[in-house]
Protein backbone atom coordinates (compact mmCIF):
# COMPACT_ATOMS: atom_id res chain seq x y z
CA UNK A 1 0.00 0.00 0.00
CA UNK A 2 2.66 2.41 1.09
CA UNK A 3 4.93 1.51 -1.78
CA UNK A 4 2.22 2.09 -4.36
CA UNK A 5 1.45 5.47 -2.79
CA UNK A 6 5.09 6.39 -3.06
CA UNK A 7 5.15 5.26 -6.67
CA UNK A 8 2.13 7.38 -7.50
CA UNK A 9 3.44 10.54 -5.89
CA UNK A 10 6.86 10.09 -7.42
CA UNK A 11 5.31 9.67 -10.84
CA UNK A 12 3.20 12.77 -10.28
CA UNK A 13 6.18 14.75 -9.15
CA UNK A 14 8.26 13.55 -12.06
CA UNK A 15 5.61 14.66 -14.53
CA UNK A 16 5.83 18.16 -13.06
CA UNK A 17 9.61 18.16 -13.19
CA UNK A 18 9.69 19.35 -16.77
CA UNK A 19 7.60 22.40 -16.00
CA UNK A 20 9.43 23.35 -12.81
CA UNK A 21 12.96 22.98 -14.08
CA UNK A 22 12.31 24.37 -17.53
CA UNK A 23 12.46 28.06 -16.77
CA UNK A 24 16.11 28.26 -15.84
CA UNK A 25 17.13 27.52 -19.41
CA UNK A 26 16.82 30.71 -21.44
CA UNK A 27 14.58 33.64 -22.17
CA UNK A 28 11.79 32.95 -24.59
CA UNK A 29 9.89 36.11 -23.55
CA UNK A 30 6.58 34.44 -24.36
CA UNK A 31 4.37 36.73 -22.32
CA UNK A 32 6.17 39.89 -23.38
CA UNK A 33 5.93 38.93 -27.05
CA UNK A 34 2.30 37.92 -26.69
CA UNK A 35 1.43 41.28 -25.14
CA UNK A 36 3.27 43.24 -27.81
CA UNK A 37 1.74 41.19 -30.62
CA UNK A 38 -1.86 41.53 -29.59
CA UNK A 39 -1.36 45.13 -28.42
CA UNK A 40 -3.06 44.53 -25.10
CA UNK A 41 -1.82 43.73 -21.60
CA UNK A 42 -3.99 41.98 -19.03
CA UNK A 43 -3.13 43.07 -15.50
CA UNK A 44 -4.47 41.41 -12.36
CA UNK A 45 -5.48 44.03 -9.77
CA UNK A 46 -7.54 44.17 -6.60
CA UNK A 47 -11.14 45.32 -6.81
CA UNK A 48 -11.87 45.43 -3.10
CA UNK A 49 -8.88 47.31 -1.73
CA UNK A 50 -9.76 50.97 -1.66
CA UNK A 51 -8.05 53.15 -2.85
CA UNK A 52 -5.35 50.92 -4.39
CA UNK A 53 -7.85 49.02 -6.49
CA UNK A 54 -11.63 49.30 -6.21
CA UNK A 55 -14.77 49.57 -8.24
CA UNK A 56 -15.92 53.03 -9.24
CA UNK A 57 -19.62 53.85 -9.15
CA UNK A 58 -19.84 52.89 -12.83
CA UNK A 59 -18.35 49.47 -12.15
CA UNK A 60 -14.92 50.03 -13.66
CA UNK A 61 -11.85 49.25 -11.57
CA UNK A 62 -9.83 52.31 -10.56
CA UNK A 63 -7.17 53.14 -7.99
CA UNK A 64 -3.50 53.74 -7.41
CA UNK A 65 -2.40 50.36 -8.72
CA UNK A 66 -4.57 50.72 -11.80
CA UNK A 67 -2.85 54.04 -12.53
CA UNK A 68 0.46 52.24 -12.11
CA UNK A 69 -0.68 49.55 -14.55
CA UNK A 70 -1.81 52.24 -16.98
CA UNK A 71 1.62 53.86 -16.85
CA UNK A 72 3.20 50.50 -17.65
CA UNK A 73 0.83 49.89 -20.57
CA UNK A 74 1.46 53.41 -21.88
CA UNK A 75 5.21 52.87 -21.78
CA UNK A 76 4.81 49.64 -23.72
CA UNK A 77 2.40 51.26 -26.15
CA UNK A 78 -0.34 48.70 -25.55
CA UNK A 79 -3.90 48.80 -24.30
CA UNK A 80 -4.64 48.01 -20.67
CA UNK A 81 -7.19 45.46 -19.55
CA UNK A 82 -7.69 44.92 -15.82
CA UNK A 83 -8.88 41.70 -14.23
CA UNK A 84 -10.03 41.61 -10.61
CA UNK A 85 -8.08 39.05 -8.59
CA UNK A 86 -8.36 37.80 -5.00
CA UNK A 87 -5.55 37.35 -2.51
CA UNK A 88 -6.13 33.63 -2.64
CA UNK A 89 -5.94 33.24 -6.42
CA UNK A 90 -3.69 36.03 -7.72
CA UNK A 91 -0.53 33.93 -8.01
CA UNK A 92 -2.40 31.11 -9.73
CA UNK A 93 -3.91 33.56 -12.24
CA UNK A 94 -0.43 34.73 -13.18
CA UNK A 95 0.99 31.21 -13.30
CA UNK A 96 -1.75 30.02 -15.62
CA UNK A 97 -1.40 32.98 -17.94
CA UNK A 98 -4.86 34.40 -17.21
CA UNK A 99 -3.05 37.66 -16.48
CA UNK A 100 0.25 38.93 -17.87
CA UNK A 101 1.24 41.07 -14.91
CA UNK A 102 0.09 41.24 -11.30
CA UNK A 103 -0.07 44.47 -9.30
CA UNK A 104 -2.35 43.37 -6.50
CA UNK A 105 -1.19 44.61 -3.06
CA UNK A 106 0.84 41.45 -2.62
CA UNK A 107 3.39 41.27 0.16
CA UNK A 108 6.79 40.22 -1.11
CA UNK A 109 7.54 36.90 0.65
CA UNK A 110 10.31 34.40 0.09
CA UNK A 111 8.00 31.48 -0.65
CA UNK A 112 5.99 33.58 -3.09
CA UNK A 113 9.13 34.38 -5.04
CA UNK A 114 9.40 30.69 -5.87
CA UNK A 115 6.00 30.77 -7.59
CA UNK A 116 5.88 34.13 -9.36
CA UNK A 117 8.52 36.54 -10.63
CA UNK A 118 8.48 39.34 -8.05
CA UNK A 119 10.70 42.14 -9.34
CA UNK A 120 12.77 44.67 -7.42
CA UNK A 121 12.45 47.38 -6.27
CA UNK A 122 9.28 47.03 -4.22
CA UNK A 123 6.72 49.72 -4.89
CA UNK A 124 4.91 50.08 -1.58
CA UNK A 125 4.76 48.64 1.91
CA UNK A 126 2.33 47.89 4.66
CA UNK A 127 2.24 46.31 8.09
CA UNK A 128 -0.31 44.25 9.96
CA UNK A 129 -2.80 45.95 12.23
CA UNK A 130 -6.40 45.62 13.34
CA UNK A 131 -9.54 47.65 13.05
CA UNK A 132 -11.41 47.31 16.33
CA UNK A 133 -14.31 49.07 18.01
CA UNK A 134 -13.23 51.93 20.24
CA UNK A 135 -15.50 50.47 22.92
CA UNK A 136 -13.20 47.48 23.42
CA UNK A 137 -10.11 49.63 23.92
CA UNK A 138 -7.46 47.15 22.80
CA UNK A 139 -3.91 48.24 23.64
CA UNK A 140 -1.69 45.25 22.87
CA UNK A 141 -1.74 42.35 20.47
CA UNK A 142 -1.85 40.12 23.54
CA UNK A 143 -5.34 41.47 24.31
CA UNK A 144 -6.61 39.47 21.34
CA UNK A 145 -5.56 36.06 22.64
CA UNK A 146 -8.32 33.48 22.24
CA UNK A 147 -10.73 35.98 20.75
CA UNK A 148 -12.42 35.68 17.34
CA UNK A 149 -10.87 38.10 14.86
CA UNK A 150 -12.14 38.46 11.29
CA UNK A 151 -9.56 38.07 8.59
CA UNK A 152 -9.20 37.54 4.88
CA UNK A 153 -8.31 34.31 3.14
CA UNK A 154 -4.91 34.66 1.54
CA UNK A 155 -3.21 37.08 3.94
CA UNK A 156 0.13 35.74 5.12
CA UNK A 157 -0.22 37.20 8.62
CA UNK A 158 -3.31 35.16 9.50
CA UNK A 159 -0.96 32.37 10.40
CA UNK A 160 1.53 34.76 12.02
CA UNK A 161 -0.95 36.27 14.47
CA UNK A 162 -2.51 32.90 15.14
CA UNK A 163 0.80 31.43 16.17
CA UNK A 164 2.26 34.49 17.88
CA UNK A 165 -0.76 35.69 19.82
CA UNK A 166 -3.20 32.79 19.80
CA UNK A 167 -5.76 34.83 17.91
CA UNK A 168 -8.66 32.85 16.44
CA UNK A 169 -8.76 34.08 12.87
CA UNK A 170 -12.10 33.65 11.11
CA UNK A 171 -11.08 34.16 7.50
CA UNK A 172 -13.60 35.30 4.91
CA UNK A 173 -13.04 35.19 1.17
CA UNK A 174 -13.56 38.92 0.63
CA UNK A 175 -12.88 42.18 2.48
CA UNK A 176 -16.52 43.22 2.30
CA UNK A 177 -17.76 40.08 4.05
CA UNK A 178 -15.12 40.32 6.75
CA UNK A 179 -15.87 43.96 7.50
CA UNK A 180 -19.60 43.24 7.51
CA UNK A 181 -19.00 40.49 10.05
CA UNK A 182 -17.10 43.01 12.21
CA UNK A 183 -19.99 45.48 11.98
CA UNK A 184 -22.37 42.65 12.89
CA UNK A 185 -20.19 42.13 15.98
CA UNK A 186 -19.36 38.58 15.04
CA UNK A 187 -15.70 39.21 15.82
CA UNK A 188 -13.80 41.70 17.97
CA UNK A 189 -11.53 43.05 15.24
CA UNK A 190 -10.55 42.88 11.59
CA UNK A 191 -6.91 42.02 11.00
CA UNK A 192 -5.52 43.41 7.76
CA UNK A 193 -2.96 45.72 6.16
CA UNK A 194 -2.56 48.95 8.13
CA UNK A 195 -2.63 50.92 4.88
CA UNK A 196 -6.06 49.61 3.94
CA UNK A 197 -7.48 50.02 7.44
CA UNK A 198 -6.13 53.56 7.53
CA UNK A 199 -8.00 54.54 4.40
CA UNK A 200 -11.16 52.79 5.58
CA UNK A 201 -11.06 54.77 8.81
CA UNK A 202 -10.52 58.05 6.99
CA UNK A 203 -13.47 57.30 4.70
CA UNK A 204 -15.78 58.12 7.61
CA UNK A 205 -17.70 54.88 7.27
CA UNK A 206 -16.19 53.45 10.42
CA UNK A 207 -16.86 56.13 13.00
CA UNK A 208 -16.81 53.91 16.08
CA UNK A 209 -13.69 52.01 15.10
CA UNK A 210 -9.97 52.60 15.53
CA UNK A 211 -6.61 51.15 14.62
CA UNK A 212 -5.21 50.88 18.14
CA UNK A 213 -2.14 48.65 17.92
CA UNK A 214 1.43 49.13 16.78
CA UNK A 215 1.75 47.75 13.25
CA UNK A 216 3.78 44.59 12.96
CA UNK A 217 5.62 42.74 10.23
CA UNK A 218 6.06 45.67 7.92
CA UNK A 219 6.34 44.01 4.56
CA UNK A 220 7.06 45.62 1.19
CA UNK A 221 4.71 44.87 -1.69
CA UNK A 222 5.88 43.29 -4.88
CA UNK A 223 4.47 43.32 -8.37
CA UNK A 224 5.03 40.16 -10.33
CA UNK A 225 5.61 38.90 -13.85
CA UNK A 226 5.53 35.21 -14.79
CA UNK A 227 8.43 33.48 -13.03
CA UNK A 228 10.02 32.43 -16.33
CA UNK A 229 10.32 36.07 -17.38
CA UNK A 230 11.65 37.56 -14.18
CA UNK A 231 15.20 37.78 -15.49
CA UNK A 232 14.14 38.48 -19.04
CA UNK A 233 12.72 41.46 -20.90
CA UNK A 234 9.50 41.74 -18.93
CA UNK A 235 11.13 41.51 -15.50
CA UNK A 236 13.92 43.95 -16.33
CA UNK A 237 11.43 46.35 -17.86
CA UNK A 238 9.21 46.27 -14.76
CA UNK A 239 12.23 46.81 -12.49
CA UNK A 240 13.19 49.82 -14.57
CA UNK A 241 9.77 51.42 -14.62
CA UNK A 242 9.34 50.90 -10.88
CA UNK A 243 12.74 52.48 -10.24
CA UNK A 244 11.85 55.44 -12.43
CA UNK A 245 8.51 55.92 -10.73
CA UNK A 246 10.28 56.01 -7.37
CA UNK A 247 12.93 58.41 -8.63
CA UNK A 248 10.59 60.78 -10.43
CA UNK A 249 8.21 60.88 -7.50
CA UNK A 250 5.37 59.52 -9.62
CA UNK A 251 4.43 57.00 -6.94
CA UNK A 252 4.25 59.74 -4.30
CA UNK A 253 2.12 61.72 -6.72
CA UNK A 254 -0.27 58.80 -7.12
CA UNK A 255 -0.34 58.32 -3.37
CA UNK A 256 -1.57 61.85 -2.83
CA UNK A 257 -3.91 61.69 -5.84
CA UNK A 258 -5.76 58.82 -4.19
CA UNK A 259 -5.77 60.42 -0.75
CA UNK A 260 -3.44 57.90 0.85
CA UNK A 261 -1.47 59.10 3.85
CA UNK A 262 2.10 59.78 2.73
CA UNK A 263 4.35 56.92 3.74
CA UNK A 264 7.93 57.21 4.86
CA UNK A 265 8.73 54.25 2.67
CA UNK A 266 8.06 56.06 -0.60
CA UNK A 267 9.87 59.20 0.59
CA UNK A 268 12.91 57.11 1.60
CA UNK A 269 12.97 55.32 -1.72
CA UNK A 270 12.79 58.60 -3.61
CA UNK A 271 15.70 59.93 -1.59
CA UNK A 272 17.71 56.73 -2.00
CA UNK A 273 17.24 56.62 -5.76
CA UNK A 274 17.68 60.35 -6.20
CA UNK A 275 19.44 61.55 -9.32
CA UNK A 276 22.91 62.73 -8.25
CA UNK A 277 22.96 65.41 -10.91
CA UNK A 278 19.60 66.81 -9.93
CA UNK A 279 20.88 67.15 -6.35
CA UNK A 280 23.70 69.48 -7.38
Amino acid at each position, binding site marked *: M*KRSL*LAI*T*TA*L*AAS*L*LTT*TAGYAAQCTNDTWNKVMERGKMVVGVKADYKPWGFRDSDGSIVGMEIDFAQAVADAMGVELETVAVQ*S*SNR*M*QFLEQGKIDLMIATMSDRA*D*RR*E*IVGIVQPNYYTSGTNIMA*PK*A*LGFKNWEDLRG*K*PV*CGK*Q*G*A*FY*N*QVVTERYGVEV*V*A*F*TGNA*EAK*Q*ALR*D*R*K*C*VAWVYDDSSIGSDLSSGEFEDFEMPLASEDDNPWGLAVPLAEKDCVFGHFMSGITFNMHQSGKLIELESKWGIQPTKYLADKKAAYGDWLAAE
Partner: protein
Amino acid sequence: MLEAFSQYFVELADNYPRWNFIFFYEPRQWARIVKGLQYTLMLSFACVILSVIIGVVGAWLQNSPSKWVRRCVQGYIQFFRNTPPFVQLLFFYFALGQFTPSVTGPDGWTEVPIISNVGWAIISLSFFAGAFNVEIFRSGIEAVPESTQEAASALGFSRFQTYVEVVLPLAFRVSLPALNNNLVNLVKTTTQAIGIAVPELLYQCVSIWNDYPSALYPTMLLLFVSFIVLVGILVMGMSRWERATRIPGYGG
Protein backbone atom coordinates in the same frame (compact mmCIF):
# COMPACT_ATOMS: atom_id res chain seq x y z
CA MET B 1 7.11 3.55 9.83
CA LEU B 2 5.24 6.82 10.20
CA GLU B 3 8.59 8.56 10.55
CA ALA B 4 9.69 7.18 7.20
CA PHE B 5 6.39 8.28 5.70
CA SER B 6 6.84 11.92 6.69
CA GLN B 7 10.55 11.78 5.91
CA TYR B 8 9.67 10.77 2.37
CA PHE B 9 7.48 13.84 1.93
CA VAL B 10 10.11 16.14 3.42
CA GLU B 11 12.53 14.89 0.77
CA LEU B 12 9.91 15.09 -1.96
CA ALA B 13 9.32 18.75 -1.08
CA ASP B 14 13.08 19.39 -1.26
CA ASN B 15 13.43 17.77 -4.66
CA TYR B 16 10.19 19.00 -6.20
CA PRO B 17 9.34 22.43 -4.80
CA ARG B 18 5.80 22.39 -6.20
CA TRP B 19 4.94 19.14 -4.46
CA ASN B 20 5.19 20.12 -0.82
CA PHE B 21 2.85 17.72 1.00
CA ILE B 22 3.32 19.82 4.11
CA PHE B 23 0.36 18.30 5.92
CA PHE B 24 2.02 14.90 5.87
CA TYR B 25 4.98 16.02 7.92
CA GLU B 26 3.99 19.13 9.84
CA PRO B 27 1.63 18.30 12.70
CA ARG B 28 0.03 21.77 12.73
CA GLN B 29 -1.01 21.56 9.10
CA TRP B 30 -2.20 18.00 9.58
CA ALA B 31 -4.36 19.21 12.47
CA ARG B 32 -5.93 21.77 10.13
CA ILE B 33 -6.79 19.05 7.62
CA VAL B 34 -8.28 16.86 10.32
CA LYS B 35 -10.35 19.73 11.66
CA GLY B 36 -11.53 20.58 8.15
CA LEU B 37 -12.50 16.97 7.50
CA GLN B 38 -14.45 16.87 10.75
CA TYR B 39 -16.43 19.95 9.77
CA THR B 40 -17.06 18.66 6.26
CA LEU B 41 -18.26 15.33 7.62
CA MET B 42 -20.44 17.03 10.19
CA LEU B 43 -21.94 19.41 7.61
CA SER B 44 -22.54 16.61 5.13
CA PHE B 45 -24.12 14.33 7.71
CA ALA B 46 -26.39 16.97 9.21
CA CYS B 47 -27.47 18.34 5.82
CA VAL B 48 -28.18 14.91 4.33
CA ILE B 49 -30.41 13.93 7.27
CA LEU B 50 -32.17 17.29 7.50
CA SER B 51 -32.75 17.63 3.77
CA VAL B 52 -34.28 14.15 3.57
CA ILE B 53 -36.61 15.01 6.46
CA ILE B 54 -37.57 18.25 4.70
CA GLY B 55 -38.18 16.29 1.50
CA VAL B 56 -40.44 13.73 3.20
CA VAL B 57 -42.47 16.33 5.10
CA GLY B 58 -42.66 18.65 2.09
CA ALA B 59 -43.87 15.92 -0.21
CA TRP B 60 -46.58 15.06 2.29
CA LEU B 61 -47.67 18.69 2.60
CA GLN B 62 -47.75 18.96 -1.18
CA ASN B 63 -50.78 16.69 -1.16
CA SER B 64 -52.40 18.55 1.69
CA PRO B 65 -56.13 19.24 1.31
CA SER B 66 -55.46 22.90 2.19
CA LYS B 67 -54.80 25.09 -0.81
CA TRP B 68 -52.63 27.46 1.21
CA VAL B 69 -50.34 24.76 2.55
CA ARG B 70 -49.81 23.49 -0.98
CA ARG B 71 -49.04 27.02 -2.17
CA CYS B 72 -46.53 27.58 0.63
CA VAL B 73 -44.67 24.40 -0.24
CA GLN B 74 -44.67 25.42 -3.89
CA GLY B 75 -43.34 28.85 -2.96
CA TYR B 76 -40.60 27.30 -0.84
CA ILE B 77 -39.54 25.01 -3.68
CA GLN B 78 -39.50 27.81 -6.23
CA PHE B 79 -37.46 30.09 -3.98
CA PHE B 80 -34.81 27.56 -2.99
CA ARG B 81 -34.56 25.71 -6.26
CA ASN B 82 -34.31 28.78 -8.44
CA THR B 83 -31.66 30.77 -6.55
CA PRO B 84 -27.96 29.94 -6.28
CA PRO B 85 -27.05 28.14 -3.04
CA PHE B 86 -24.10 30.47 -2.47
CA VAL B 87 -26.36 33.52 -2.54
CA GLN B 88 -28.74 31.77 -0.13
CA LEU B 89 -25.85 31.10 2.20
CA LEU B 90 -24.73 34.74 2.24
CA PHE B 91 -28.32 35.92 2.58
CA PHE B 92 -29.05 33.63 5.53
CA TYR B 93 -25.84 34.46 7.36
CA PHE B 94 -25.59 38.19 6.78
CA ALA B 95 -29.22 39.26 6.30
CA LEU B 96 -31.29 36.87 8.39
CA GLY B 97 -28.47 36.56 10.91
CA GLN B 98 -29.22 40.17 11.88
CA PHE B 99 -32.66 39.31 13.13
CA THR B 100 -31.91 36.22 15.17
CA PRO B 101 -31.40 36.66 18.89
CA SER B 102 -27.84 36.89 20.10
CA VAL B 103 -26.01 36.73 23.39
CA THR B 104 -23.67 39.54 24.32
CA GLY B 105 -20.17 38.19 24.80
CA PRO B 106 -18.05 38.58 27.97
CA ASP B 107 -16.37 41.72 26.58
CA GLY B 108 -19.74 43.50 26.39
CA TRP B 109 -19.37 44.28 22.69
CA THR B 110 -19.41 41.13 20.61
CA GLU B 111 -22.75 39.57 19.98
CA VAL B 112 -22.62 35.83 19.72
CA PRO B 113 -25.60 34.83 17.60
CA ILE B 114 -27.60 31.83 18.76
CA ILE B 115 -27.16 30.38 15.29
CA SER B 116 -23.46 30.26 14.38
CA ASN B 117 -22.07 30.31 10.85
CA VAL B 118 -21.98 26.51 11.00
CA GLY B 119 -25.63 26.53 12.00
CA TRP B 120 -26.56 28.79 9.11
CA ALA B 121 -24.60 26.65 6.69
CA ILE B 122 -26.52 23.56 7.82
CA ILE B 123 -29.86 25.36 7.64
CA SER B 124 -29.37 26.97 4.25
CA LEU B 125 -27.79 23.94 2.57
CA SER B 126 -30.47 21.63 3.97
CA PHE B 127 -33.27 23.87 2.74
CA PHE B 128 -31.58 24.11 -0.64
CA ALA B 129 -31.23 20.35 -1.07
CA GLY B 130 -34.59 19.81 0.66
CA ALA B 131 -36.40 21.72 -2.10
CA PHE B 132 -35.06 19.24 -4.63
CA ASN B 133 -35.85 16.33 -2.33
CA VAL B 134 -39.52 17.37 -2.14
CA GLU B 135 -39.76 17.11 -5.91
CA ILE B 136 -37.84 13.85 -5.92
CA PHE B 137 -40.20 12.30 -3.39
CA ARG B 138 -43.18 13.65 -5.28
CA SER B 139 -42.09 11.72 -8.33
CA GLY B 140 -41.93 8.60 -6.16
CA ILE B 141 -45.32 9.26 -4.60
CA GLU B 142 -46.95 9.77 -7.96
CA ALA B 143 -45.58 6.41 -9.03
CA VAL B 144 -47.60 4.68 -6.28
CA PRO B 145 -50.87 3.55 -7.91
CA GLU B 146 -53.99 5.42 -6.86
CA SER B 147 -55.69 2.05 -6.30
CA THR B 148 -53.14 1.12 -3.63
CA GLN B 149 -53.96 4.29 -1.70
CA GLU B 150 -57.67 3.72 -2.11
CA ALA B 151 -57.26 0.17 -0.84
CA ALA B 152 -55.43 1.51 2.21
CA SER B 153 -58.13 4.05 3.01
CA ALA B 154 -60.78 1.35 2.46
CA LEU B 155 -59.01 -0.62 5.17
CA GLY B 156 -59.48 2.33 7.53
CA PHE B 157 -56.05 3.97 7.27
CA SER B 158 -56.01 7.73 7.86
CA ARG B 159 -54.36 10.06 5.36
CA PHE B 160 -51.28 10.26 7.55
CA GLN B 161 -51.13 6.51 8.10
CA THR B 162 -51.52 5.82 4.40
CA TYR B 163 -48.63 8.18 3.69
CA VAL B 164 -46.28 6.80 6.32
CA GLU B 165 -47.08 3.11 6.09
CA VAL B 166 -48.06 2.54 2.49
CA VAL B 167 -47.12 5.34 0.13
CA LEU B 168 -43.74 6.39 1.54
CA PRO B 169 -42.13 2.92 1.71
CA LEU B 170 -43.10 2.32 -1.90
CA ALA B 171 -42.25 5.84 -3.03
CA PHE B 172 -38.81 5.67 -1.41
CA ARG B 173 -37.75 2.82 -3.63
CA VAL B 174 -38.67 4.72 -6.77
CA SER B 175 -37.04 7.92 -5.52
CA LEU B 176 -33.73 6.44 -4.39
CA PRO B 177 -31.70 6.86 -7.62
CA ALA B 178 -32.70 10.52 -7.97
CA LEU B 179 -32.22 11.10 -4.24
CA ASN B 180 -28.78 9.56 -4.53
CA ASN B 181 -27.83 12.16 -7.14
CA ASN B 182 -29.10 15.06 -5.12
CA LEU B 183 -27.33 13.97 -1.93
CA VAL B 184 -24.05 13.57 -3.80
CA ASN B 185 -24.50 17.12 -5.01
CA LEU B 186 -25.27 18.27 -1.50
CA VAL B 187 -22.07 16.80 -0.07
CA LYS B 188 -20.06 18.64 -2.70
CA THR B 189 -21.99 21.87 -2.13
CA THR B 190 -20.86 21.92 1.52
CA THR B 191 -17.59 23.44 0.26
CA GLN B 192 -19.49 26.67 -0.40
CA ALA B 193 -19.68 27.17 3.35
CA ILE B 194 -16.22 28.72 2.94
CA GLY B 195 -18.16 31.87 1.93
CA ILE B 196 -19.26 32.40 5.52
CA ALA B 197 -15.95 31.25 6.98
CA VAL B 198 -17.02 27.79 8.13
CA PRO B 199 -13.69 26.03 8.68
CA GLU B 200 -14.51 23.00 6.54
CA LEU B 201 -12.08 21.14 4.30
CA LEU B 202 -11.92 23.69 1.47
CA TYR B 203 -11.40 26.55 3.95
CA GLN B 204 -8.50 24.74 5.58
CA CYS B 205 -6.99 23.77 2.24
CA VAL B 206 -7.18 27.32 0.92
CA SER B 207 -5.57 28.55 4.15
CA ILE B 208 -2.77 26.03 3.80
CA TRP B 209 -1.99 26.85 0.21
CA ASN B 210 -2.08 30.53 1.01
CA ASP B 211 0.38 30.08 3.84
CA TYR B 212 2.53 27.70 1.78
CA PRO B 213 2.23 28.42 -1.96
CA SER B 214 4.39 25.36 -2.60
CA ALA B 215 1.61 23.17 -1.20
CA LEU B 216 -0.98 24.19 -3.79
CA TYR B 217 -1.03 21.05 -5.93
CA PRO B 218 -0.83 18.62 -3.03
CA THR B 219 -3.72 20.29 -1.18
CA MET B 220 -5.85 20.33 -4.32
CA LEU B 221 -5.06 16.67 -4.81
CA LEU B 222 -6.04 16.03 -1.22
CA LEU B 223 -9.34 17.85 -1.76
CA PHE B 224 -10.17 15.74 -4.79
CA VAL B 225 -9.23 12.49 -3.11
CA SER B 226 -11.18 13.38 0.05
CA PHE B 227 -14.34 14.13 -1.85
CA ILE B 228 -14.02 11.09 -4.08
CA VAL B 229 -13.78 8.95 -0.95
CA LEU B 230 -16.54 10.81 0.88
CA VAL B 231 -18.98 10.68 -2.02
CA GLY B 232 -17.93 7.10 -2.73
CA ILE B 233 -18.94 6.05 0.76
CA LEU B 234 -22.28 7.82 0.40
CA VAL B 235 -22.99 6.26 -2.99
CA MET B 236 -22.03 2.82 -1.70
CA GLY B 237 -24.38 3.17 1.25
CA MET B 238 -27.20 4.39 -0.95
CA SER B 239 -26.90 1.60 -3.49
CA ARG B 240 -26.78 -0.91 -0.68
CA TRP B 241 -30.01 0.56 0.62
CA GLU B 242 -31.42 0.45 -2.88
CA ARG B 243 -30.65 -3.23 -3.16
CA ALA B 244 -31.95 -4.04 0.30
CA THR B 245 -35.32 -2.45 -0.36
CA ARG B 246 -35.78 -3.83 -3.84
CA ILE B 247 -39.08 -5.58 -4.48
CA PRO B 248 -38.82 -7.97 -7.40
CA GLY B 249 -41.11 -6.84 -10.17
CA TYR B 250 -41.67 -3.37 -8.71
CA GLY B 251 -40.01 -0.28 -10.08
CA GLY B 252 -36.97 -2.10 -11.46
